[in-house]
């Protein structure tokens, strides 16, 4: 590297110093990325580079030839090409790191999901309605129920039971008094709850005389539904408050009456 260069080479160097410096800059960006590769001329002292620079001579004031311009253009293109490749490689590394940050936790989560099969069933009630028809033996309480299994294993509801709680008392409701319907057809238990599904059913509750007496008592009421599952039981509750005028309207009127409720059970409700 340190040996004296011929005159032709000197001319070449003098014409290409800007490009060479450009290459040096490009290499610095490589070094930032941790690549230990060093360009072939990186270790040449600046004094030697300057000593190889041709001094201006009268003949150098002439216009450069076409070949020289082409050579300059080619070297500039080489420089730009190298810069472009560096940019792609830099962002490629960044994207790779980002991809790994996403893929590794996801892979771990998938592995856990594959190894640990479990149902994740829940039963929800949001709104309810009471219908009173004077000639019927009981009021009809109806509400939609949503059964959802967000787990990775099928589940089943093996039975159903309900309990009506009123001021100071509670009454159990049998399966006959508490029906589950889908499009008007009664659904019998056991009921399969497939994994990753959500299904809505209509529930209709008919009161026996004792339950009707409790429901017609002014105060807060809570209807609790219990569905025994394969491994555990699922429950959901629906609360509604009736004052004296509600009771007169819904249980003693000689007209058809309906009342909607949209009340979740809060802590302290019964």
């Amino acid at each position: 590297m340190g040996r004296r260069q011929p005159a032709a080479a000197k001319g070449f160097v003098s014409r290409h110093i800007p490009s060479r410096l450009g290459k040096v800059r490009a290499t610095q960006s490589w070094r930032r990325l941790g690549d230990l590769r060093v360009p072939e001329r990186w270790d040449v002292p600046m004094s030697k580079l300057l000593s190889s620079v041709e001094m201006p001579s009268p003949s150098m004031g002439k216009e450069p030839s076409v070949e020289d311009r082409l050579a300059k253009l080619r070297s500039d293109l080489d420089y730009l090409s190298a810069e472009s490749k560096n940019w792609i490689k830099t962002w490629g590394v960044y994207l790779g790191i980002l991809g790994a940050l996403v893929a590794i936790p996801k892979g771990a989560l998938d592995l856990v999901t594959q190894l640990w099969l479990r149902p994740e069933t829940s039963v929800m009630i949001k709104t309810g309605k009471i219908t009173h028809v004077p000639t019927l033996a009981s009021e009809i309480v109806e509400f939609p129920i949503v059964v959802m299994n967000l787990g990775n294993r099928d589940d089943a509801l093996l039975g159903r039971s309900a309990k009506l709680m009123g001021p100071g008392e509670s009454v159990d409701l049998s399966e006959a008094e508490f029906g589950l319907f889908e499009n008007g057809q009664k659904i019998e238990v056991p009921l399969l709850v497939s994994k990753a599904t959500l299904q809505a059913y209509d529930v209709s509750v008919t009161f026996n005389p004792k339950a009707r007496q409790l429901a017609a008592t002014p105060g807060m009421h809570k209807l609790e539904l219990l569905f025994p599952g394969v491994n555990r039981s699922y429950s959901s509750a629906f609360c509604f408050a009736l004052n004296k005028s509600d009771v007169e309207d819904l249980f003693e009127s000689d007209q058809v009456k309906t009342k909607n409720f949209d009340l979740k059970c809060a802590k302290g409700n019964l």
Partner: protein
Amino acid sequence: MNCLTTIPILAVLVGSVAFAFHGAHFQAYKPPIEAKPGYVTTGTVVQQNAQTLVLDTTPCEHSEKQIVIFHSPFGAKDAEPISCPDGKTFRRITANQG
């Protein structure tokens, strides 16, 4: 068998029979249908006045009854009576929600 043993056995037997009787004769209701405009159905009259008409569309069904509620304006006309398997015959009407 002494009296202390007989009484609990009789109580269990009577309770079981009463529970079975209640289960067999308990009349539950499906979620009522509120008739929408254009809805037409036939059934026995549960209740009728100027504002509402309530029909039982399952008169022969004893365990699960379906009722339909029509609100004024609605139309009603006589329909063929229905004879149930137990021998009872019910007069029916056809109603349509206006």
